[in-house]
């Protein structure tokens, strides 16, 4: 591995300054669970790794006014161990508690998962269905990017030179809202999604119709995908098995999977249908029991 230096800035300004100065030769990291593997495999070379875990803004987790702010370096375990977050955002917990094993969850962050921009990232789809916003900070100051627009290709994202992800903001969910994430893997743990689906629905007052819905798909395109047509289809529909099955078919039509060592194209399309139905059913149950 090409030798690099280790920097642990204490402020955002300091972090931005280092990243700006070093450009492509430096990258920020939190859990290091992806970047060290990539560096050892020789995927790219760096002169510096910038540890964000001493920066207060990136390590804060706060639930206020029904919304959630997750610092970019907050590890998965801190998210799922927080009882209030667990109660309010079960769809997010679905993902945070299945990335890697326990050892990985001690370190891996949803922010890192997002920045790594893998099409199969488990953490991204639930963020998309929660309409989450990525809060960025760079030499030019702050800006926002929607999570669904954040990844631009396998391993590529919208971050510019010197810019870093500070935190991810989830707006307060609407009333009678439920979300869920499931992925399919051949083993039961320690695996990469062959396909994954996050679903979110909000119901009308009597629970007879879906008033808003968002579906996001993992590992079936160059990035995690917001399934716009399937999401739109659900609006106004009764939350029935038939509706969900139809939504699954539409979601599959929005997927553009490839065949690789983790799964075939046909299998991935079948999985999108199945996981869409299954996650919608869980999201519905959660919506019905939410406030």
């Amino acid at each position, binding site marked *: 591995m090409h*030798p690099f230096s280790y920097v642990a800035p204490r402020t955002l300004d300091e972090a931005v300054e280092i990243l700006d100065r070093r450009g492509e030769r430096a990258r920020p990291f939190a859990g290091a669970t992806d970047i060290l593997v990539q560096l050892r495999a020789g995927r790219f070379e760096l002169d510096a790794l910038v540890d964000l875990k001493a920066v207060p803004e990136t390590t804060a987790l706060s639930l206020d006014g029904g919304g959630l702010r997750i610092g970019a370096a907050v590890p998965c375990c801190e998210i799922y161990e927080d009882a209030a977050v667990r109660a309010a955002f079960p769809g997010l917990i679905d993902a945070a508690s299945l990335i890697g094993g326990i050892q990985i969850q001690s370190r891996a962050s949803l922010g890192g998962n997002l920045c790594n921009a893998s099409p199969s990232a488990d953490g991204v789809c639930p963020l998309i269905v929660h309409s989450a916003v990525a809060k960025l900070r760079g030499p030019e100051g702050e800006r926002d990017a929607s999570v669904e627009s954040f990844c631009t290709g396998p391993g590529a994202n919208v971050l510019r030179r010197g810019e870093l992800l500070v935190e991810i903001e989830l707006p307060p969910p609407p009333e009678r809202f439920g979300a869920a994430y499931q992925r399919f893997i051949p*083993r*039961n*743990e320690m695996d990469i999604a062959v396909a994954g689906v996050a679903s979110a629905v909000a119901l009308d007052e009597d629970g007879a119709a879906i008033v808003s819905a968002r579906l996001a798909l993992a590992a079936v395109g160059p990035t995690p995908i917001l399934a716009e047509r399937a999401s739109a289809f659900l609006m106004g529909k009764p939350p029935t098995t038939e509706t969900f099955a139809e939504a699954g078919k539409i979601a599959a039509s929005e997927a553009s999977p490839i065949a690789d*060592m983790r799964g075939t194209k*046909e*299998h991935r399309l079948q999985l999108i249908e199945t996981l869409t139905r299954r996650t919608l059913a869980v999201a519905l149950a959660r919506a019905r029991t939410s406030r």
Partner: protein
Amino acid sequence: MTTTTDRPAQQFNVVGTRPIRHDGVDKVLGRAQYGADLKLPGLIHGAVLRSPHAHAVIKRVDAAKAAAAHGVFAVITGEDMPVSASELLDMGEEVTDLRWMSERIMARGKAVYKGHPVAAVAAVDQNAALEALKLIEVDYEPLPAVISLEDAMAPGAVVIHDDLVGDHLGEKARGTNVAEHTRIEFGDPDAAFEQAAHVLERTYTISRAHQGYIEPHSATAFWSPDGKLAVWTTTQAPFGVRSNLAQVLKLPVSAVKVTPMEIGGGFGGKIQLYLEPLAAVLSKKAARPVKMVMDRKSVFDATGPGPGGQVTVKMGVDANGAIVAATADIRYMAGAYPGSSISAASVGVFACYKVPNLRIDAYDVVINMSKTAAYRAPGTPQAAFASESLVSELCERIGMSPMDFHLLNAAEEGDRRPDGPIFPRVGNKACMEAIRDSAHFQSALQREGPDGKLRGRGMASGFWNGIGNRSSVTINVNDDGVVSLVEGNPDIGGTRATIAMQAAEILGLPAEDVHPAVVDTDAIGYNDLTAGSRTTYASGQAAIEAARLVVEEMKKRMALVWETDPENVEFENGVFRNKVAPDQRFAFKQAAGKLGQTGGPVAKTGSVNVRGSGGGSFAAHLVDVEVDPETGKTQVIRYTAAQDAGKAVHPSYVEGQFQGGAAQGVGWALNEEYYTDEDGVMLNSSFLDYRMPTALDLPMLDTIIVETPNANHPFGVRGIGETSIVPPAPAVANAIADAIGARLYQTPMNPARVMEALAAKRNGANGR
């Protein structure tokens, strides 16, 4: 955990108990020294540059920049390795051509598998060595890669080794990738098929699967200026490494000393040389000890998995379900050099059955992938996947339960094994009966699982012969009556304990009072490798022999003390007694304290060359699975393994062998494979994507130890390490077929393939 035995048990004090293994405390404290843990004064670190191509001419290797890099001590390429002419090496049980072995270790002129070493560097630390590799310039001219049976066997195929001379049924063949075609035949199977009431023929495809030991290969070497070469390595075969190093490096055997470090799993994959000769030659050039540790990717790319291939089996039965004939066509891909266990596959494919008319053709085929290695019951799980799947499907067709079929057709004492020998008393039928009588078999299977999942049950049998061969064990009696036991077999799974226990049984000592130590090749007589299910069986006999010699010598010493004839001294249950003066008696410990004044220390070596294995160890496995028809995922929900141990020396470690083999077999059945691109580059060369079972993927694994004594061992012990990987894949295949009503003919039976089988069934194909 159950044990069934079919005879009045020989009485034992130690054998059959479950003491804590002698090396256990070191291992739970993290103090045991594995290969990579070694530290030596002046140690430097090596790394290997490997071919990125599966098949390429190496036009130029320029290592000048690497040699000049900061922190680099030595660089070697193929030019630095001695050249060997073709010479067949008898490696105890396996045969290797010295020339193929030398070329496999380091490429010269041509790379024939992805990961083939092209150069190596020794530097001040691991990262400096890795960085220096980047400075080595290699010009490759890629050639078309031969990576499948079709590629390799097609007329006009690209020939990997121009000078390979194939042996095709005794005829020499040139310009071929088929290194060997063998045949076993007796009776007239074709005529018998004509007469059979039912005949079924199927073709099965089996993935190559890696042994998957958690410890990567490592080797440290110091080539001293006096010409002596010391090697510390993680190996199953310290004496094999010694002789192979001597052959490859053109040294006398006695110039090489091999110290086996603790070994973090092997399963047959740590027998061949990989890093040892490279570390040695680097050490010679650098005049320092050099340590090399393989990374996980290279373990997958460049060390031996078990071979994949294709097996076609055909079986005919009469109206009662008795087998009248069977044939098999076995084609294994050996990797870049010949040798893929086709002989064992030919024995194992129908070994469980009485087959009156039989023909087995087997082909050893060379392709552009890493040379395969032995993997637990080498060659046999692949063949059994075919034959045991076929039996189950045949049973469906003739409406006979697989249990009845097995019991009717099981090979027993006096029946002829496919390759000729007659079975002595074996536990084949006893294992079936143990499964039949198990709570698992007797319980009804709830066919519907939760959420629409489908359940099924399958069984399969398995055979592995095992070997005996050469072992030496030395026992030294200490003043306090504790004995040290010196042995030469690396302990992969508890054999320090099982060998020590056999000595303890003879000496009348508790297991704890025998202190076993695994030592280097200069410190003990010759030992064949820790493999072939032989260690407890054969080295145990060397320990028994050594213990008997100790007892005989100590009887003489007690005779001196008691002023009587040695014939008057008897030894029973750990006590020496004077038959003519019954009040004269010494426990072993007391006697041990009298050795100094009666002639000096007692140290005895038992050296044996154990014949055969007593007919091998049979097994029967029963498995319940749950299949999700919407995703194709299979979950093993219940498992029972019965196997013949002859006599279980340490039942816990016998159970552990049954369970470990079952887990590896389930992994092979469901997910494990080499997924390569069309150029022969493995794409899933990590523990993430190779998908071995995790703790969450398996249920508890129930075991039944069957004990049909082995007449070749004084305690009746059989070698048991390998058979347990033979039945799992077909048992799982049979359970999946039972669950979903469609059959899979290919491993791994991964979710996508299960979905394909379900779709084919819906479309009217492949249904029942």
